């Protein structure tokens, strides 16, 4: 009985480990020491969720969470700030999140697919 259960248990364990490895991550945030962040009001402005944590409270955050299909010949990928929520066009802070799953995806697709997860806040426009 014990022997027959073991493969089942191992399968579950592997699934759990893979899940945690793929979602395990860290992030680093670069913040400007000048300018003021674009503000918003949670509960009123749609793009102002109250669930992003301490740093993002009352700040208008733009989230880029996507997989970019590039091709093995592509070296650089650039992204531009959007106008909505970033009227000043100037960046106040940028947070880049690195996940094990994203790194794995890059490896197994030979750089063809690149997981991007970025949160950025623009500067509040000066009047």
């Amino acid at each position, binding site marked *: 009985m014990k022997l027959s259960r073991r493969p089942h248990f191992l399968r579950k364990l592997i699934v759990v480990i893979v899940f945690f490895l793929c979602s395990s991550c860290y992030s680093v945030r670069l*913040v400007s*020491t*000048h*300018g*003021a962040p674009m*503000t918003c*009001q949670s*509960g*009123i402005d749609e793009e102002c969720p109250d669930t992003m*944590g*301490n*740093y993002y*409270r*009352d700040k208008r955050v733009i989230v880029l969470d996507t997989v970019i299909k590039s091709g093995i010949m592509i070296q650089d990928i650039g992204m531009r700030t959007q106008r909505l929520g970033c009227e000043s066009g100037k960046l106040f802070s940028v947070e880049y999140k690195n996940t094990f799953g994203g790194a794995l995806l890059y490896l197994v697709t030979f750089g063809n697919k690149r997981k991007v997860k970025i949160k950025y806040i623009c500067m*509040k426009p*000066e*009047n």
Partner: protein
Amino acid sequence: MANTTSHLVSKWDTLHNNGPFDLKLLQKTKLQGKSNMPSEIDRYNDSANEIRRLLQEALDHNDGFRAYGARWSMSSIAHQKDRMHYNVFMNLDLQILSDDIHKESVYKRENLFFFQCGNTIKEISQKLDSHGKSLKTSGASNGQTIAGCISTGVHGAAFGVGAIQDYIVGLNLIIGPNPEDIVYIERKTKAALNSAFAAKIKSRVIRDDDMFNAALVSLGSFGFIHGVVLEAEDRFLLKRYVRKIDKNIALTLAKTLDFKNSDFKINGETDANGKGNTPYHYKVFINPYTNEKEYVIEVMYKKPFIDNYPDPFHTIDKSIYKDLIYLLIKISERFPKRIPWFIKQLQKQILPDVNEESLGTLYETFWDAPYQGPAFACSFGVDSSDSERALNALMNLTKKEGPIPGIYAMRFVKKSEATLGFTKFPVTCVIEIDGVIWKKSRNLMSLQEFSKRMIEVLQQHNIEFTIHWGKNADWGFSGLLDDMYGSKALEWKKCRNLLLSDKMKEVFSNDFLRTVGLSENVVHFDNEPEDLIVSN
């Protein structure tokens, strides 16, 4: 035209989640674009017209109206159940020219700046910096709007300077819906700008010391604060030291602020006779649950500005998991006896590092608040000579009837001229306990109960006190207003009665004002100056 969007909502909350509070309508005004209206004065006047229109709407609906900015206050002072106006995008600054200065002005033109209400301390500091100027003082952080700061009496620990409202020299208020309801108020004895400038911003001038001092800390109830004139000073640097010193020396300094004759000295911060220099800033941190013989203190000395000082910002900033704090609070609610242990574990995160030193401008020193989650703060003002007695009384309460998940600090502020400035003593010692919001449990009293007991304990010890308008307190405590301000409260109400019509008094009132007893009409005036009555 400035553009206002209106949102039907049901709740509103402070930044630190001290609510939620009921609300019907939230309005947000953005200014006309620079490309469509290049003149700053035109855009400023255009936004004034928009605010007048919103006030008319509020009147038409029998609604109250209240502006708010960064919503940092923890009391319900910023809340209005009918209409609230978010003014953070109203952040113009107007240039003051030589022709705008009053002929009897006591201020230098180059030190006077005009800022619209929604400018934050951070934005103002940056704008001043580009002119080689600085604010005289700020709070411990920089996110509050200027209108919010002065309305509640935000302060730092600059005991030779005062609170933020103390360097405001002119106020531009919108007190009703009509064109003549825009007023520019300044002191008669210290005029700053002339009537020609007031005409540019379509304002009627009131030069009256009593009215100005009352409107300075207005609790948001003297009308819509549209702009302020502030007096800045030349940019300076602050040399900051954190030290752990003998508790008795720290408390003696708190009572006397006599650094010259104290045993506390810092190398390089002494005069030719070896006596200690008087710092710009003094703050004491106290963990109420340890009987340490030494307290952590922070002192800052003012230095002339030089260009080539090292960058004061750390490249790397770390913060602990917010969820860890919440977990500790949840455990504390069930097992309050663990609170002192938790605070000791978090002490490294809460208190500055001992022997830390830095050099930077005011803007760089009082930087972004690292924690913006749910929080409470109770803050009492006492005469600095009473600081030790008050601290001991409050700490005993916290230990015996708590524990409460917070840590104490003392800061010191010069007397304010504002009628209801809570920094009313020659030097006010602000004793504050800050921490994370908790829920009442079987073994842990509520914040409301704790706030009430703090007032009772200070009264039992016959210690005269005031309370920071923007902090948590039992604001409905019987006789509180009279105890704190006596005849000053009546003076404030008289000035408000003179400035606002009955209808507009109602529009600019809120539950907070009614609770503390400041909303009521004052029926009789002696020598009523009729020309002050402006709103219709």
